[in-house]
């Protein structure tokens, strides 16, 4: 069954398109948090972080509608490649101007 | 095959015509091992408006669900209705029982029996509800069901309280009255 849940909710899980009719669940239902495709292709720009000036306030993490900013144990942000759509909210709301929107694919932590 | 016995009840909304129709059917089914359908004239219930109700009784299961076209018995709880509603279900064979204090002079088909039901209900029941009383007259006159079966039906409907006792009392009195009417006209027996 393609219905097998991923180990963690809302993690990227590989999903091969069903080929057998029985691979579809019997009704419009599916395990929650079962994701297949990345949103990577949505963006033109993405955040480039200057950790030297980062105050670890966490506002970038707070305001990301896509949960694409992850915080390290120490409170520093990293960018989730699969989820960032490049909207720029994190950069706009960073009180220290530690985030700028660079080209997609640029090193996020130069 | 034998045709089911058809009783038509005619009253005004609130007078208990349908309760009487249902009580007769209930007694037939639960206490006389007969089959019955009981149904009201379909539609919204409006207090005071003319109400028909029907009881269809037979020995075998009743499948016919069409309207009653020929009544064996018609019970009229308010004589004033007879001039304003269609009585096409009356035939020369119909026994027409009418609540009236005055002598009956109706230009309608059927054999007519006048009973001062409201006056008697005030006396026996302390109310103007004539349904159990007219049920008693009907059973006495026609012998359609064993009277004890209808008494059981009344007990099942009204429970054990004083209301049941009063209604039973009225029923039996009325039953005697029906028997007397029948003695005067033996052809009325069902």
């Amino acid at each position, binding site marked *: 069954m393609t219905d097998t849940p991923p180990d963690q909710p809302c993690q990227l899980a590989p999903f091969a398109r069903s080929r057998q009719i029985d691979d579809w669940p019997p*009704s*419009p*239902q599916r395990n929650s948090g079962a994701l297949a495709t990345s949103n990577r292709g949505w963006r033109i720009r993405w955040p480039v972080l200057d950790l030297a000036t980062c105050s670890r306030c966490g506002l970038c993490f707070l305001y990301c509608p896509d949960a694409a900013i992850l915080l390290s144990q120490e409170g520093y942000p990293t960018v989730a490649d699969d989820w960032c759509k490049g909207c720029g909210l994190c950069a706009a709301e960073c009180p220290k101007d530690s985030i700028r929107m660079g080209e997609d694919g640029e090193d996020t932590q130069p | 095959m034998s045709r089911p016995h058809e009783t038509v009840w005619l009253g005004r909304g609130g007078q208990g015509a349908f309760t009487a129709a249902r009580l007769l059917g209930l007694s037939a*089914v*639960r206490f006389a091992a007969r089959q*019955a359908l009981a149904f009201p004239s379909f539609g*919204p219930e409006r207090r005071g408006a003319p109400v028909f109700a029907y009881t269809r009784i037979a020995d075998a299961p009743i499948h*016919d*669900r*069409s309207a009653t076209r020929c009544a064996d018995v018609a019970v009229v709880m308010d004589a004033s209705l007879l001039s304003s509603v269609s009585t096409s279900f009356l035939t020369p064979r119909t026994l027409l029982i009418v609540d009236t204090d005055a002598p009956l002079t109706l230009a309608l088909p059927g054999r007519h029996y006048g009973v001062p039901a409201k006056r008697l209900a005030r006396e026996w029941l302390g109310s103007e509800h004539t349904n159990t009383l007219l049920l008693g007259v009907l059973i006495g006159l026609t012998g359609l069901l064993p009277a004890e079966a209808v008494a059981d039906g009344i007990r099942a409907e009204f429970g054990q309280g004083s209301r049941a006792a009063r209604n039973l009392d009225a029923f039996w009195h009325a039953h005697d009255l029906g028997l007397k009417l029948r003695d005067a006209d033996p052809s009325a027996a069902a």
Partner: protein
Amino acid sequence: MSQLAFLSGNEAVAEAVRLCRPKVVAAYPITPQTVVVEALAGMVESGRLESEFVHVESEHSALALVMGAAATGVRTFTATSSQGLLYMAECLYYASGGRFPLVMMNANRALALPWNIYGDQSDSLALISAGWIQAYAETAQESLDMIIQAYAVAEDPAVRTPVLVNLDGFVLTHTYEAVSLPEPSEVDDFLPPPVFPDDYPGTFDLARPQSLAITAGPGDYAVFKARQHWAMCQAAKHIRTTAHAFRAAFGRGCTGLVEGYRSEDAEFILITLGSTAGTVRVVIDELRASGQSVGLIRLRYLRPFPTDELNDALFGAERTVAVRALGVLEKDISFGHQGSVALEVKAALYDRGAGVPVRNFVAGLGGQDVSRAHLADCFTELAATLDTAARVASGVRFVGLKDLVDDHDQEPA
């Protein structure tokens, strides 16, 4: 043991629901269904039924609400009629597409305009494609029995398709008759528990969260719909096995999706549904007594449509006489064509019934009384159908229209 009661169709449904112990009941009144929700309210108040009784603000909400409740894994009930059924039409498709195992009673009633509260079958037949199993009861007893069986069928994990149990408005909903009322323990033994097992598909799961009633794009939608269709087709088998089990447990009831009455040796057969079948039986007995070769086939279920059963009944090996003409009698008209049931029947007969003339009789619209004389007329007309001229006339015959208008009951020239 079971007790004999004197109940209306509506009351029989309410008693059946009480015995099935739904955990959530959504109630919105509409004539002629209202007695059902009133009776259930009384049962909840008196403690005879332990259920969340929810007063909703519309039929749309009633069906949406029981869908939400079913998603938590509990048995539910609601009832409606006519405009109410159409008002919840969107949710009917939702519920069947989501494969929620709901049971709903519908008091068959005419549709406005003209506004009319009396019985006919236009409401449920308008929603024949909504993905619900559609059952039509003839008697109060069958209404009670169908409700109980409906839960068994709907909740069967292989079916998971909602069931609509239809009662003719007033003629059945408001008519009192003898009903054998089972004991609660007997129904408990017959049905699964009213709280579904934790792994019941299509319900929330707190240990393993589920997304239900989801979106599917063009690449997947068709697969879900095909599976829904197959489940409905499979349901026919489950309806029959459930009916056999019911008969074994309670000693009564039809076991097929169609029921014949004196039809095996009848040349002229009326096909109908609902309570009108009862009056047809009486007319058949009368006509048989005068030597006429007439019979009845009653459609107990319109979805899944019993194509094979119907064909077997009409053309099967057990017949002793060949069918010469068929009439389909229904309280419905699909404007500009014919009655919906006639269209269904004709489609079902396409392979095996070629050459048998089928006439469509529309009767009982908006509560019009269907009399024995009307039905006898139908059989007379069926016989006349055999002459070539009548055979090609495919129009609808409005039964009894002559009683109402002086000139004609056929389409103006």
